[in-house]
């Protein structure tokens, strides 16, 4: 981002007359707005997609009328409706925490958007600690969920929040462990560098670099589903048990924030999987045919479709099965895979 601003300032006499800090500040505001807009577009599109995909899987049509064709304007209309709804706060709720909880959940997702590279070098903040930053800030979201669940002062919300806490804290471990293997092979935490390391054909993608990484990719995908509360791990908001879980008492814009964050998280976990395992913006042929962002978004879109397909296919796990899957299956497997990657690097150095 800094180079971009420097280049812009050099070419414009108006910007040169301002102090450089002002330019940087304006650029920061601009890119934050870009991130928010991008996140909102992703979320709105995925909500629509989810409704269409679920409808098709259940032999229905889904939204068809709004916007003329395909019901494409259904989610913008819904968003508008949520914006105009009355902002309700339950009488016995803790007002302060009730109000800031959606903001925290939203912010956690927004922060991850800043660090995800869409194309080669096309990233808002090219962080040296890229993937680690994403893991760190995405763990913030659960605070918003617990806060909202507790502040609602409703048993359903509280149980949803507590389930979210135990689930996300547990599944953070396999997520991180399965990604460390890629970091070891790539030798960097920087997401742009990791993406560059996978150029030159599908056999260079980290998923196919090593059998251990292939398994690690699958472990990551399962654990990441649990981390963002998607079926079959959607216990924090299990409709048949908890009404709507932690966001039961929310309405209007605050509910929209939770909802937006949830669907934007779909993009985040798919994008991380694409960057870490599926060759980021590189095509599967040794040469780049289409622009990088198209490849990137195409792969992300494919993973999101798989996630939705899973949601409408699999039943929900029980709480004990959930914990069993994490602590007795995924964590040992990812641990073994990590050691496997290390052994492979030791036996075949430089490969």
């Amino acid at each position, binding site marked *: 981002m800094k180079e971009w601003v420097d280049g812009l300032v050099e070419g414009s006499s108006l910007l040169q007359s301002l102090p450089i800090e002002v330019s940087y500040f304006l650029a920061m505001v601009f890119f934050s707005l870009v991130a928010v807009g991008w996140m909102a577009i992703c979320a709105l599109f995925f909500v629509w997609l989810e409704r269409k995909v679920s409808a098709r899987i259940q032999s229905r049509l889904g939204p068809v009328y709004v916007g003329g064709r395909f019901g494409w304007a259904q989610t913008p209309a819904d968003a508008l409706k949520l914006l105009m709804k009355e902002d309700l706060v339950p009488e*016995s709720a803790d007002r302060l925490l009730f109000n800031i909880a959606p903001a925290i959940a939203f912010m956690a997702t927004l922060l991850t958007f800043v660090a995800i590279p869409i194309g080669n070098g096309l990233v808002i903040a090219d962080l040296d600690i890229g993937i*680690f930053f994403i893991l760190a800030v995405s763990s*913030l979201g659960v605070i918003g969920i617990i*806060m909202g669940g507790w502040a609602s002062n409703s048993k359903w919300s509280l149980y949803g929040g507590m389930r979210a806490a135990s689930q996300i804290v547990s599944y*953070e471990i396999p997520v991180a462990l399965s990604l460390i293997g890629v970091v070891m092979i790539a030798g960097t935490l920087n997401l742009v560098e990791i993406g560059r390391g996978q150029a030159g054909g599908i056999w260079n993608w980290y998923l196919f670099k090593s059998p251990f990484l292939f398994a690690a990719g699958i472990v990551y995908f399962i654990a990441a589903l649990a981390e963002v509360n998607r079926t079959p791990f959607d216990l924090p908001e299990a409709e048949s048990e908890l009404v709507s879980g932690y966001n039961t008492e929310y309405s209007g814009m605050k509910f929209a924030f939770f909802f937006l964050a949830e669907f934007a998280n779909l993009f985040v976990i798919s994008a991380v999987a694409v960057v870490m395992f599926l060759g980021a913006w590189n095509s599967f042929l040794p040469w780049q045919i289409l622009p990088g962002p198209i490849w990137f978004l195409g792969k992300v879109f494919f993973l999101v479709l798989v996630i939705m397909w899973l949601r409408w296919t699999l039943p929900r796990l029980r709480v004990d099965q959930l914990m069993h899957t994490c602590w007795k299956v995924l964590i040992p497997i990812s641990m073994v895979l990590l050691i496997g990657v290390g052994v492979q690097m030791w036996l075949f150095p430089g490969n």
Partner: protein
Amino acid sequence: MSDEIRLGVFLGFGMITLVSGAVVALARTIIYSVFALLFTFFGVAGLYVLLHADFLAATQVMIYVGGILVLLLFGVMLTHKIATVQLRSASMQRGPAALICGGLLALLLYVIFKTPWPVKELGPATPTVQRIGRYLMTDYLLAFEVISVLLFAVLVGAALMARRETNR
């Protein structure tokens, strides 16, 4: 970044840390203390970033916010009467507490102002991760291993204690 802006950002993060830290200590509702701790951790992480310690800042957020704070919240919520919002923390023995805290403050101030700290100019931001990794695997390997053994023992102990309760 010019020095004035750096100072301003430093003061901002310092204020966040101090104010939320005060809330942690003084809030009457336990849950407020825990949530205020979130902002304290964030303020400290911001200070780390200001010192170009990006890895340390992310670690701070990851370990303290993503792990410890969530477990603290979990612990608070498992206490009884959580369904009622009133969960108060009482303060008692104010006299002795003030005495001890005042003494501690004086001691800390003495140490802060008397120690010849190795201060150096803040250079440009450089990648830290590789150096940290190298040091952890060479110069500080013993400390690293001791900590991991300790944490492993804690993990086994915690599992054992949790197990015993379910068997009863």
